[in-house]
């Protein structure tokens, strides 16, 4: 058997014995069920409400009926975006960190590296094993979602919706993969396992909360909403004048947001799940085509981090320290 695969299999069995991993995984799955069930139920209620409202309008003789509010069945997993964003990322960071640190603590890293194994093969095996694990988690969550939406929401998913949902779970997988690699890279680069974990978590805070928060704070939507201009009846000259003042902020804000894989994940997911309006009429592949930059923003950092981990691991001499 191939060395990569041997290591990968060991990773999977290790994770399935890890108490914390199992606890968080359990929570994630329970939350998935809860959020999907609640979401599906809400879709149903909303649908009933809307139908009633339409009936009423029709009976009043109205011919121009309000458009269907945003109650597409696949947005049932809207809450899931957040849970994966939080717990999935946490889970990925823990596994990534443990993958390296546990070998160093138990001294087994020396034993492995003194065998007929290339250092990059070891890393590949670790990555492969953990990715398989997360692919499994994504599939499981997807299965739960499909079943619940069908059973509770009482809405049949169209092929397009199912494809969108599938793509969304693919994006979730990519998102978790990023944090997995982040955990591994920090564990490789920082000698002290504990410190590496803390740094990984700080990095997570920065990417998933601080950057989007700064983006929000600096967003004029919040400070000078479109409504402001309108209510003031501003002329366009005045508008542009005010806006020019914010041009610098706007660029800075934008670049900060672009650095956050969380933001990219959110953008693709919300478009796929129709949480963000404006993509209802597109086919799933069109959505991806429109959002390809975000998919890139989600995967590119993973690849870069991974290459850095390669280079770092190859050079590390203090790998034998605990």
């Amino acid at each position: 058997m191939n060395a990569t695969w041997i290591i990968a299999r060991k990773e999977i069995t290790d994770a399935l014995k890890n108490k914390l991993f199992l606890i968080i995984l359990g929570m994630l799955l329970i939350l998935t069920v809860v959020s999907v069930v609640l979401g599906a139920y809400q879709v149903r209620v909303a649908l009933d409400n809307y139908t009633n409202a339409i009936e009423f309008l029709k009976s009043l003789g109205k011919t121009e009926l309000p458009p269907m509010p945003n109650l597409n069945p696949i947005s049932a997993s809207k809450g899931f975006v957040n849970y994966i964003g939080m717990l999935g990322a946490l889970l990925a960071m823990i596994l990534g960190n443990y993958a390296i640190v546990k070998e160093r603590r138990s001294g087994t890293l020396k034993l492995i590296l003194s065998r007929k194994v290339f250092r990059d093969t070891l890393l590949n095996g670790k990555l492969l094993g953990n990715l398989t694990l997360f692919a499994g988690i994504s599939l499981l969550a997807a299965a739960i979602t499909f079943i619940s939406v069908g059973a509770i929401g009482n809405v049949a998913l169209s092929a397009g919706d199912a494809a969108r949902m599938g793509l969304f779970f693919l994006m979730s997988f990519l998102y978790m993969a990023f944090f997995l690699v982040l955990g591994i890279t920090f564990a490789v680069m920082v000698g002290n396992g504990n410190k590496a974990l803390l740094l990984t978590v700080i990095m997570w805070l920065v990417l998933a909360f601080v950057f989007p928060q700064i983006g929000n704070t600096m967003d004029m939507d919040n400070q000078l909403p479109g409504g402001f201009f309108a209510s003031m009846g501003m002329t366009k000259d005045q508008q542009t004048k005010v806006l020019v003042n914010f041009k610098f902020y706007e660029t800075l804000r934008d670049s900060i947001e672009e650095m956050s894989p969380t933001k990219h994940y959110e953008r693709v997911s919300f478009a796929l799940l129709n949480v963000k309006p404006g993509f209802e009429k597109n086919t799933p592949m069109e959505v991806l085509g429109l959002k390809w930059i975000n998919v890139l923003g989600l995967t590119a950092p993973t690849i870069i981090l991974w290459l850095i981990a390669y280079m770092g691991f190859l050079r590390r001499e203090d790998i034998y320290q605990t």
Partner: protein
Amino acid sequence: MRVTKVIGAFMVLGLIVCLTPFTPSALAAGSSTTELSANYLTIPGGESIARIMVENKDSKAHHYNLEATGLPEGFKAYFTLQGKGIKGLDLSASEKRIAELHLNTPLKATQDYGLIKVKSSRDDGLETLMSVSFTVNHDFSLEITNQIKKLETLNGKSLSFDIAVTNTGNKELKDLGLKAELPYKWTLDKLTPEKLSLKPGENGAFRVTISIPPSQGSGNSILKIKSFNGAVASQEISIPVTVTATAGYAWWVIGLVLVVGIVTIIYFRKNVRR
């Protein structure tokens, strides 16, 4: 070519409500004798609102069904109470409330004058009738035309398109402006001409230039545009715009990945131990 035929209103909705006599027409259910009548102005394709008071003169609570009868062909009517559609209302003893009758005039209405009856029927069978008359004003009417099915552009760029307007009324319309409701952070850069005056039957066009902020992600948005002056407003037309994000950022990222990749390969070549 898609033409959204919309006729402007002489009196916009809110204005009608304001001008309506503050003593609403009373539909004094319970006393069958009273029959008041008021005259309302309306325009083809527009909606006017009549305020109707329903009073319960009984000492018991009752439910009242409301119905508008005698509508000319093509006309539609419905009732609302505090903005919500109703078919009837409940009144406790001696209570009175004001409902609104919405009258929709069809675009092709030819008559100048009409009369409808509002009937309230109490749950114990008591019925009351009230007349509401209306005058259709054919003087002012504005049509807005949009030749564009869909616009496509890149973020950070600006976009120009034409909006045509036609005066379909009997009088001249002066100082027509254009109001565009844009997505957040989009700006209206230029509007030529700023104002437009149209004689009856005359056509005119606005050239609109808007700019899309660089931070706008890929996706579909909708512009809502209408033309108006102090007296008339056309209805709103919607133009879908598909924005594609410029790939500048993407090239940087791809470039970075390539650089790191090459560095890694060189690194591996130079290191003996793997």
